[in-house]
């Protein structure tokens, strides 16, 4: 929303600093924290190269790039998950186990190919079997479980990233002089509701 009442996040920090009598150092560290969001390329800490590449591919299938916006690969979902795998053995087991399950299942179906090396239609064919829990074959239950974890966490990673917030159109947690609700948004909802 381009509204003259809105100010940038940095302005917000400065305003708060003024209100709180914060020192320049504190303001600086707050701004530095903002900048830290854009870091160099991530180096996997918990997963090996093959596992990480497989996870990245899986994340791109769960939240793909499209005409409107980039997807989970561009948003670094695999990095977020690897970071938590390095922080928690329980999490690491879920992902090393789940990714190995994907490879094992693909090998059976595609002449010994890993998930990553299988042709894209074979990858989505396998996901089609495990992405809907109620219609999944019972013998793929472990895959269903893993996929639910991966879907939740890839979605988490994407929509809590700057790219994902932009895709949703989230405009909040900023400073406004005044709170206003655009009339066009009210009209949109009221017209579509049974409550004219």
């Amino acid at each position, binding site marked *: 929303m381009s509204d003259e009442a809105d100010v940038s996040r940095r302005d917000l920090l400065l305003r708060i600093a003024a209100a709180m009598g914060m020192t320049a150092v504190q303001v600086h560290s707050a701004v530095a924290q903002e900048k830290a969001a854009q870091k160099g390329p991530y180096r996997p800490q918990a997963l090996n190269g093959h596992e990480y590449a497989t996870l990245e591919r899986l994340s791109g299938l769960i939240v793909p790039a*499209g005409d409107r916006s980039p997807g989970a690969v561009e948003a670094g979902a695999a990095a977020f998950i690897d970071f938590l795998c390095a*922080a928690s053995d329980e999490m690491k087991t879920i992902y090393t186990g789940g990714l190995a399950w994907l490879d094992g299942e693909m090998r059976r179906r595609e002449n010994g190919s890993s998930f990553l090396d299988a042709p894209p239609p074979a990858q989505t064919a396998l996901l089609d079997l495990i992405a809907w829990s109620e219609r999944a074959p019972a013998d793929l239950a472990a895959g269903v479980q893993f996929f639910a974890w991966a879907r939740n966490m890839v979605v988490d990673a994407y929509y809590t990233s700057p790219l994902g917030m932009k895709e*949703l159109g989230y405009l909040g*947690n900023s400073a*406004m002089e005044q709170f206003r*609700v655009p009339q066009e948004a009210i009209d949109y909802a009221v017209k579509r509701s049974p409550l004219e």
Partner: protein
Amino acid sequence: MLQVIRAPQVFDVAVIGSGAGGGTAVKVLTDEGLHVALLEAGPMLNPAKDFKEHLLPYQVDHRGAGAHAELYFGRQQWGYFAAPNGYWEIAGEPYSVAPGDEFRWFRSRILGGRTNHYGRISLRFSDYDFQPEDGLGDPWPVTYQEMSPWYDKAEGFIGVTGTKEGLRTAPDGNFLPAIPPRVHEVLIQKACRKLNMPCIPSRMAMLTRPLHGRAACHYCGQCGRGCQTASAFSSSQAMIFPAMKTGKLTVFTGAMARELVTDAAGKVTAVSYVDKATRTEQQVRCRAVVVAASACESARLLLNSKSPRFPAGLANSSGVVGRNLTDSTGFSLSGYVPALAGLPRYNSDGIDGMHVYVPWWRYGNGANGFPRGYHIEIGGGFNMPQLGSFHGQCARHEGYGKPLKDQLREEYGAFVHFAGRGEMIPNRHTYCEIDRERVDAWGIPVLQFHFQWSENELRQARHMRETFAALIETMGGRVLGPASPGREPAGISVGGAIIHEAGTVRMGRDPKTSALNQYSQAHEVKNLFVCDAAPFVSQPDKNVTLSIVAFAWRASEYLAEEMRKGHV
């Protein structure tokens, strides 16, 4: 030999607990020129460091999951980004629950207590809350007319939004300008009109205008995570920090009160406490004491302050200390509203929580099937995406790829949430007492809780479900199911989970059936006051914090006057 360290100074008043009640006592008593010692069981608060309200999830590597991904394994007690407000479980500070009962006890251990994060809903109790007309429960020793000026003071100081509505179930106050309803709230207001329910601007302790040196709100919508500009009220920032600057206040942090020490005349002379950092026994001497440690901690402290003169605990000859425990009833329901799907984006933050709410609308209607009532809190809007925000939709839609991505975008901001908060009538099965078999890490006997909802509360929760479903359907929406489906049939909250404990050191006119008089002063111990929700005779369907401030203000002015007159 164990050495008890006594500070040389004798303070005019020792205040135990720094939340809404303790903070108010500190403010009023130091304004009156008294020298006050404040004991807080947790650390000092540093808002610049402790409040993370402007951090976005991606500014932290784990994005709020916790250093060991605790969130994903259900091991995170409260969100990572939340204010350092308290816990359901505290290491070294256990409590027990009687077999067959359920109770959860939220405790805060930081300067400011729960006011650093609370919802800031600020509702006056009604005339009939003080003097019930249905014969249930007990009347308070004060009337609404007597309390109204104290509510004026409380609202005037903390700052409460609102509008004059002339409703008996929601008495008007001394309000700051209200804030406009968000799009989903406009729809809810229309649905309420159709169902003949009031839906009025919310009464919240956030500043829509600057007040007493606190900046006006900048509408970042993150009040629950603490507010660096103190535009959302907290006792720490609005009351205690200013009092510290007067030179009249000495703050003892990490100070876990163990016992109130009395003299031969039965007056409190000191607070005995454990300094957590050194695990040493210390004493603060005082001419009077204000206990404001939260309803159940205050009861625990009195019950643990036994002496030959007070064998059942201090100020407890009546035996009511620990009895009459209540929490608000809670029931929540969410709905998906297609009319909101694809809604043009706007910044819907405003003040955190609801901009409009539904006060009880069926007072005096005997056909309800249950006594008393509830109010309805409202949620929805374009909330900040956080870990877990979309797990519900992932579980409902399943699948993956473009269809999932499109669906999440389409449905963003199209959900509404209703939460009922209602009155529980005290019952004899619900109380806390000292657990004789357990002590905490400092050797202080812990509490055991007994908690049972009665059929009154269960019927109320069922009524909430029907009402919320009707609201969602009137908006053309689809009910998604209760927040706690495991607790069918009524789906009512676990006792304690709403964090509105009250009633455990009740006030009353008769010393045989109450511990405190109408000024929150112990009948038996004239220099002992209790200033949290423990004195409350009932648990009206109006969150207790504003009333804690009003009653603590009144008690503190009374205490100062009694001290001037030499009565205390």
